[in-house]
């Protein structure tokens, strides 16, 4: 163990390269062919299967598992990708424990579901390794659709549009595609630059152009898009982060958890990635878990996630909470930050205990201080830069069932739009369904 382990402040190289490699290896390693067969054999091929109902993209899970079991993983992949073109990433990052696997009848029977996520990965990895793309474009319709954001919603929308013969141009604010798949997920959930590989593979269908570093506002407006294209789909996600609104939030060592996660994901050499000796994360969702667990894996000595409500209210799944705990992260419930300490640099965070009284969260007198040289805030993201013309509600663009906004010819989906959980799989479903509605509208079938 490196002596840097006990060095105060924020520094790189707390662990050596070997330890970091091990810490950031695949969370759920890929099945080999035999393991996949064994796992597939456990599926009962349920009638009107609960897993399929639970999947936001309605993947025909019993069918694809049977296809794996009979030695045709490529057909299985096609079954998956027909409903979810980002089935490869979803296999890695879906909280399956609260979706398909939660309702698996094997979970009911034995407390051990069929490992649907890993089977899905086996199928999609097999297909992608072959370098082929299973879909082809319909004859060109001559229609052009602008898609804002190359995240899961935008990519799913563009791909489905391309399948139907439309041309899609994706306007992406960053220099890389993938959205949160690329920038917002714990590194151990998507190794080997999978997000980029998936984007490249998805684009093989043709008819999709991505213009990088050109988001809304970069000389591009909703008006200009509407003028130049037959339809517009907005899938730019949530660009802002919620602040703690405490004095001292600008101190060195205080940053949004999303920035940390992004920096880590983009790092080519983790030995150069700095982390505090004592890290505090404020929040109760997946972002808090991803930040806390990865801080620990980078070599932070003490990592504490503090959430203002009880354990049952945490947005992160129990599996995710256990994962963080297993890495050595402490989770404190029912406490809220009330002060940031330090002279220039952060030295600690003051908390007050909370209690729910008559359904309202109340801050109590008692509290505690956690010494900290790094504080990650993970109390939610917010919509930024949404065109004024669009109706919004609760910080999201208001959309109908198939993604139509309040403005004709403009659709939205993914985290920036109302309805559904903020999950990759939900964004894919929304992007796909909006594309189907755009297609119907453009072809006069809606």
């Amino acid at each position: 163990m490196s002596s840097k382990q006990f060095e105060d402040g924020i520094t790189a190289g707390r662990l050596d390269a070997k330890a970091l490699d091990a810490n950031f290896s695949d969370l759920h390693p890929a099945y080999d062919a035999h393991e996949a067969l064994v796992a597939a054999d456990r599926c009962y091929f349920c009638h009107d299967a609960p897993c399929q109902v639970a999947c936001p993209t309605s993947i025909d899970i019993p069918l694809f598992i049977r296809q794996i079991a009979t030695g045709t993983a490529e057909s299985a992949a096609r079954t998956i990708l027909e409903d979810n073109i980002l089935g490869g990433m979803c296999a890695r990052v879906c909280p399956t424990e609260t979706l398909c696997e939660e309702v698996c009848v094997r979970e009911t029977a034995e407390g051990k579901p069929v490992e649907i996520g890993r089977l899905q990965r086996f199928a999609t990895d097999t297909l992608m390794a072959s370098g082929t793309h299973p879909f082809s474009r319909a004859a060109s319709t001559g229609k052009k659709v602008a898609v804002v954001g190359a995240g899961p919603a935008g990519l799913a929308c563009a791909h489905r549009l391309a399948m139907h013969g439309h041309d899609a141009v994706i306007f992406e604010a960053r220099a890389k595609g993938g959205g949160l798949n690329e920038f917002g997920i714990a590194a151990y959930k998507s190794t080997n630059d999978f997000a980029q590989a998936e984007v490249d593979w998805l684009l093989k269908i043709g008819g999709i152009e991505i213009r990088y570093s050109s988001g809304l506002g970069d000389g591009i407006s909703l008006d200009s898009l509407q003028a130049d294209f037959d339809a517009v789909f907005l899938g730019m996600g949530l660009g802002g982060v919620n602040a703690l609104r405490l004095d001292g939030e600008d101190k060195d060592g205080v940053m949004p958890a999303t920035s940390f996660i992004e920096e880590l994901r983009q790092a080519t050499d983790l030995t150069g990635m700095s982390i505090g000796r004592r890290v505090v994360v404020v929040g109760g969702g997946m972002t808090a878990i991803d930040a806390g667990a990865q801080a620990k894996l980078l070599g932070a000595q003490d990592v504490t996630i503090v959430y203002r409500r009880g354990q049952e209210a945490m947005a992160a799944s129990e599996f995710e909470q256990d994962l963080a705990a297993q890495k050595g992260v402490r989770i404190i419930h029912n406490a809220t930050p009330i002060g940031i300490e330090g002279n220039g640099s952060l030295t600690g965070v003051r908390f007050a205990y909370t209690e729910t009284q008559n359904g309202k969260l109340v801050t109590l007198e008692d509290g505690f201080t956690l010494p900290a040289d790094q504080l990650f805030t993970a109390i939610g993201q917010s919509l930024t830069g949404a065109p004024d013309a669009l109706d919004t509600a609760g910080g999201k663009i208001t959309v109908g069932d198939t993604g139509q906004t309040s403005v004709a010819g403009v659709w939205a989906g993914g985290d920036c739009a109302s309805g559904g959980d903020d999950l990759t799989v939900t964004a894919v479903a929304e992007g796909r369904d909006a594309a189907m509605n755009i297609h119907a509208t453009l072809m006069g079938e809606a």
Partner: protein
Amino acid sequence: MADLTTDFLGIKSPNPFWLASAPPTDKEYNVRRAFEAGWGGVVWKTLGSEGPPVVNVNGPRYGAIHGADRRLLGLNNIELITDRSLETNLEEMTRVKKDYPDHALIASIMVPCEEAAWKAILPRVMETGCDGIELNFGCPHGMAERGMGSAVGQVPEYIQMVTEWCKKYYDKPVIVKLTPNITDVRFPARAAKAGGADAVSLINTINSITSVNLDAMSPEPMIDGKGTHGGYCGPAVKPIAMNMVAEIARDAETRGLPISGIGGITTWRDAAEFMVLGAGNVQVCTAAMTYGFKIVQEMISGMSQWMDEQGYTSTSDFIGKAVPNVTDWQYLNLNHITKARIDQDACIKCGRCYAACEDTSHQAISMTEDRVFDVKDDECVACNLCVNVCPVENCITMEVLQPGAMDERTGKVVEADYANWTTHPNNPSSTAAE
């Protein structure tokens, strides 16, 4: 612990579990290991006539059918009888029998269908001190083309003739091993009995192609691009074998003829099932080839425990006990009416019963939006398919309607009396008294 000592044709063995004549019993080394592992008896790999031994293929000999997790369900083989010299085998048998006097040792024999051939080999076998012989009239591949094995077993007259020769030249028990590659196993069994056989053993392997290589377009196992039919065995053949054993056990002409049961026996329970259907002992091969000789320990402990639980003190207490309950379809009680019942607490809501019944049977299971499955008594014919496809044991069971109850499907009251097809009004040849 129950006493498993078994007396079969006067041949005593410490338990009823014998190894069948097959690859596991081809050599002294294997047979000694088998006895040390606990097997009660061994039927030595089939001996041929003196002279140059047969040759086997030098490519793969076995093909397989797998279930979940590559569990071996069925095996086929194209191996022939022993390919070692008669002399070597006889010497080894002599040594083994001397060292294991309390274990059963049987010589399996297959020589040409000529009296001289049998007359020549039988005294040689006698000299080994083995406890009896088994006539291999079953091997379906390789030897049949040379007029031996199943080529004999498929002609009852030949069975009788050869059995008579053996009884003439050999004093100890003669067991005739039957092939299942026939239409009615009772005929060869009757012929064996007519020839003076002390017992029959069955089944030998079934003609089969286990799989086809779709790249090479050839059956497996594939030898230089070609395959041939082989003998099928293992758990998959057990139901076929048990029916044949029961047919012989209950046939008026062969009833009481001792039977050595063979065919897919893998556990103590399989063995018990064969024995209650009339087998005086059992022979095992594929299970040993799959898992090794150690499985006999489970067979011994399992059968002992079951016997203790049932109060059986000897295997003879239960041998043949189920035979009186094997009957013909026409004698089944048509007034016995059952309905499927789903235990809602045990149900895991997979819906397979619904799919099976709705798509392929009688539309007798209902499904609610929140996945509650129930039986519609007015449609249920009690076919048992839902019971069989349900992944949870005992979740779906059959409830017997008591006399006086209403069968909602037919609208008729259940009658207490036994009534079968022979007396049913719909039967044109009904024998009911007017």
